[in-house]
């Protein structure tokens, strides 16, 4: 409510220029579904706000075996774009219709847990982020983006401009477990991507949300899966490993204790779905 100025840049260049000029006192807002509640509740009182809706960052296209997604692309746009079904599914699992019409792919990267149910799917698919500042641009794997609870590798003058998602080479699964079907904070969300040769796992990506400071990879479970035969025993061992290595927390939705146990159940279910 204390906002003095609102910027609506018409290009990425203009956006990063404004960011360079005003620095951290400028709140970057994409869909607004995360920032506005905090502003309305008086938790956040930004002096200046920059909206990204017109900065030309809203697009989806397939390029050379990858899906290129502008950071300000809405979740509804993702739901409607048939390229990578697991992403459609992940996007569909967030909010109600109106929220999906506002919330963006880039914005979801910054949703504190248990938010981030789209980012977790991106993590399982080895998404790469294009970070842009007035100084130039760089590419960073999403896995290296998060540095802690609500902290990232983003420099103060940088924007997430684009996300590049390789079309998965293997089979995927996405399970969000909340107290209800959709539109709910997660107890745990599991996104898995396994490259199989027959029953043998050649490569495994297993990402978890709502059980860590940000969407995380279950690297020990991944290591256990890679090279193994995807049978019940492997699945059980991987599920147990993921439950062991995750860092769950307690909130009004679930206790850390329960979350850890549900990681076991839902990793198992996700892997079983892939094995079928």
């Amino acid at each position, binding site marked *: *409510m*204390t*906002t*003095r*100025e*609102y910027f*609506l840049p018409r290009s990425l260049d203009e956006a990063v220029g404004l960011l360079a000029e005003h620095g951290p006192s400028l709140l970057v*807002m994409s869909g*607004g*579904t995360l920032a*506005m*509640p905090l*502003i*309305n*509740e*008086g938790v956040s009182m*930004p002096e200046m*706000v920059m*909206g990204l*809706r017109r900065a030309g960052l809203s697009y989806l296209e397939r390029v050379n075996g990858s899906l290129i997604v502008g950071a300000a692309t809405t979740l*509804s746009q993702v739901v409607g774009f048939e390229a990578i079904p697991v992403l459609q*599914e992940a996007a*569909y*699992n967030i*909010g*109600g*219709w*109106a*929220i999906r*019409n*506002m919330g963006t792919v880039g914005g979801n990267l910054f949703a504190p847990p248990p938010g981030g149910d789209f980012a977790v799917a991106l993590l399982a698919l080895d998404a790469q982020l294009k970070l842009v500042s007035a100084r130039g641009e760089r590419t960073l794997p999403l896995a290296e983006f998060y540095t802690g609870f609500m902290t990232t590798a983003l420099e103060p003058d940088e924007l997430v401009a684009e996300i590049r998602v390789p079309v998965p080479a293997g089979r995927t699964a996405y*399970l*969000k*477990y*909340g*107290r*209800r*079907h*959709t*539109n*709910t*904070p997660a*107890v745990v969300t599991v996104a898995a991507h396994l490259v199989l040769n027959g029953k043998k796992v050649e490569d495994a990506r297993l990402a978890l949300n709502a059980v860590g400071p940000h969407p995380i990879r279950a690297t020990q479970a991944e290591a256990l899966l890679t090279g193994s035969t995807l049978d019940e025993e492997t699945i059980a061992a991987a599920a147990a490993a993921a439950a062991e290595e995750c860092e769950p927390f307690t*909130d*009004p*939705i*679930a*206790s850390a204790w*329960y979350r850890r*146990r*549900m990681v076991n*159940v*839902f990793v198992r*279910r996700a892997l079983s779905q892939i094995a079928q």
Partner: protein
Amino acid sequence: MKINFQLNGEDVTFDVAPGQTLLSALRAHGLFGVKHGCDTGECGACAVLIDGTPMNSCVMLAAQVAGRSVTTIEGVGGEQMRGWRGSEPLHALQTAFVETGAIQCGYCTPGMIITAKALLDREPNPSEEQVREALSGVLCRCTGYLKPVQAVLRAAAILRGEEVPPISQEGAIPAPPGLFERPEREAFEPPVMGRGDGQTLVKTTPMPTMIVTEEKQLRHVGKPEPKVDALKLVQGKPAFTDDMEMRGMLVGKILHSPYAHARIKHIDVSKARALPGVHAVLTYKDIPRVAFTTAGQSDPEPSPHDNFSLDNKVRFVGDRVAAVAAETEEIALKALDLIEVEYEVLPAVLDPRESMKPDAPVIHDEEDSDGIADRERNLAAVIEWQLGDVEKAFEQADHIIEGTYYSPKVQATPIEPHVVVTWWDEDDRLVIRTSTQVPFHARRILAPVLGLPEKRIRVIKPRIGGGFGVKQEVLIEDICAHLTIATGRPVRMEYSREEEFTAARTRHPMYITIRTGVMNDGTIVANEMYILSDTGASGTHGMTVAGNTGHKAMSLYNAPNLKFHADVVYTNRVPAGAYRGYGVPQGFWALEVHTDRIVRELGFDPLEFRLKNAIKVGDEHPVSKVWNEGRDAVPEIIETCGLPECADQGAAAIRWYERYNNPEWHQVPGKPHLRRGIGVAFVMQGTAIPNLDMGAASIKMNDDGSFNLLVGATDLGTGSDTVLTQMAAEILGCPPEDFITYSSDTDFTPFDKGAYASSTTYISGRATVIAAEKVAEQIKEVAARMLSAEGEAVEPEQITLHDRAAWAPDGRSVTLREVALNSLHHEHQRQIMAVGSYVSPLSPPPFAAQYATVTVDTETGQITVDELVMAVEAGVIINPVTASGQIEGGMVQAAGYGVCEELAYDENGRIVNPRFGPYWIFRADDVPDLTTIFIETYEESGPFGAKAVAEIPLDGAGPAIANAVYDAVGVRITDAPLYPEKVWRALQAMKQS
């Protein structure tokens, strides 16, 4: 900054602040159809279309819509009845919402319609699942979503050019064989994947199943008449408290306590007062100290006077510290930040089981509060009574079963928060326009607090966006009025959603211990109930809620020996108050889970055991002999009770006999981790408080033969204006549309105690009937004189009223218009007008059998409630559509406290889930399949034979679900809600033992 955009098809320029939300900008420009329900994009009341796509305007800056096209409810459908301009058609969605009864309070209706419009614009032939998914972002607390979904499907059919069946009550009797046969519902994987189950059965009519006992020869009563206020609500007209502007209006805000229990050692407001734009900052030092109760009840108020507008002590996180009035919300919030407070933090009591301990801090240590049972022990109220000799009966009983059951702290969450506007009128009277269920009590209670006599206060109740009891409370009217007194200016104050959770009122959490003596033949010989009720930091409704728990829950199984004791204790939590059901849901949560235990442990049939012990026609209502809200108790006899029929019809509808004890049905093929279960609960409620609740109505005839019906009763979305109009229309022989029904305004409408205790249809209805009968008599006198002057003499008693005319037995008639003109202008001139008022010596209980089926995921503990069937006997149903809307919405609220709703606290007494995200109320896409059955009886004492339906649906769903979970997986959860983690822990514990 100036922004240009297209608003409802027209180019407009708005001057907005850079940080202003689109919601705020639209409302500031008079688009009041866009509603405020939360501040976080989680309720959808503020939904608008941006370039045809639904978005939530509360989480969007106005500046973002520059160059876009914005559609609000005001841009949907044409204008109505504009004199010589006539009417333009409404959108098919609006018509369907009116016809199907999809509107209760109407506060979420604009959001629903605008979202549904976007869906139908994209998908002309949506499935029910698609409709539910689209509406899932728009929360509704009234309807249970059944009728809104039907309305959208109906509108879609109309828009496709299909014929839709009329909504009528024809041929409802008697129930033909096979009526309840429905296709088997597939079980589905409950927790994941988001796409819903797709299996919900599409209902084609909003009508409930009606089992009618006699043919009715009535024209308007018993018919699914559309709500009298539906047309304005479906167009988003400015009908609600906040839908107004006044010159110079200030915004009021409250500084809330961050501590659960503290004394204000020092408070400095000088910086806040110095802030430009601030007109008043009030602390306890600035206003008179008057002890009062916020509970809106009749005089003398039974709740302790333990509340002060502002105090030097805070008793819960969220309690008032100071109040500010400023020119804008932004300035007001900034002023709150500038108030410097030094607290002496005191030890707090957060668990009611600690409240009475000797070392517990005393929460109400002030000397000037009044009516507290024992302040040293934090005891707000104590109730004790006994019938027969329980101890002796226990000695003789074959079995004694005892258990303790907990019901949680839940919030009513009407989508419209508490909101009030106060101002001085031209006669220096204080006007309070407020979202209240109790305008007359509010005036009386506020008078001493504000230092004004009642006659200098006027309370206006406009349309209310849901209340469910939480608005039977004088919650923020006092502080807003203090700010108007301090500033001389109009002040508006509205709670945020967070405040609604942290600083309004909740249901009373209760620990209930029941001890039951049962004979080998299944006869209950004794019941003993002990209640520990947590009233929070104020005793508002504390005694009467706990009394009501015993009054209803102890009466259902009419044992000869009954003993009841309730301790109502203070804690440092947000006060509990009235919430739909008023103690009875807590009572039946305990009683019906307990009864299921008895049945299972002793091997009885659940239906037979209940029916064997249940109260019957001709029985004395046992607790009526000993309890009436702390007043003199007068014994009552049960004159109508359809419980056996409810049990039968409900069992048939849910196919009880095919499922209960059928191992095969309990399995889900191919999904060994899922188990199905079925459960039942019997319940009863009351209909008004006998010898106390009074309502009145006045009816005045106009020149054209129309009538003003003025009622003190407060329709808060329940449809009471409609059913009262139907009754008057029946008697006066004209359609409901000939009534200008108005509720309520302390200046214009006669007294009514307000909307609570399931009383409006019965009490205010009877008052309306009395007024209408008097008016009918006056009309007949005039008509008889007119008809006699033109031909054969007619006596008034021979005249009948129907079809907007007065008829002689020989078929001659004069129209009501002719009667009115004659009486007002031509002969023996007088105003045809009458007042009726009514108080009942009785409170005839409605009865119901609630059934539920669930699917339990044994690997996660997650419960999916598949079906809720409620068979209700509530006398004659005045309007089957509005009545079934009450049952559907009520069952869903009840399922909420059964499975998912609970305010969560941290160790410092802070509520950690004060948002609609983590505080989960059911949404359109996750409500169970709902079935309502009405078994009609004729209650002689009620208007047209009616009893109440408002609260009874809150009583049974919780325990029926818990019993179904036991049936599914064998774990007995005694503390609601049954959220997954709790069920899973119980499953693990069972495995280990």
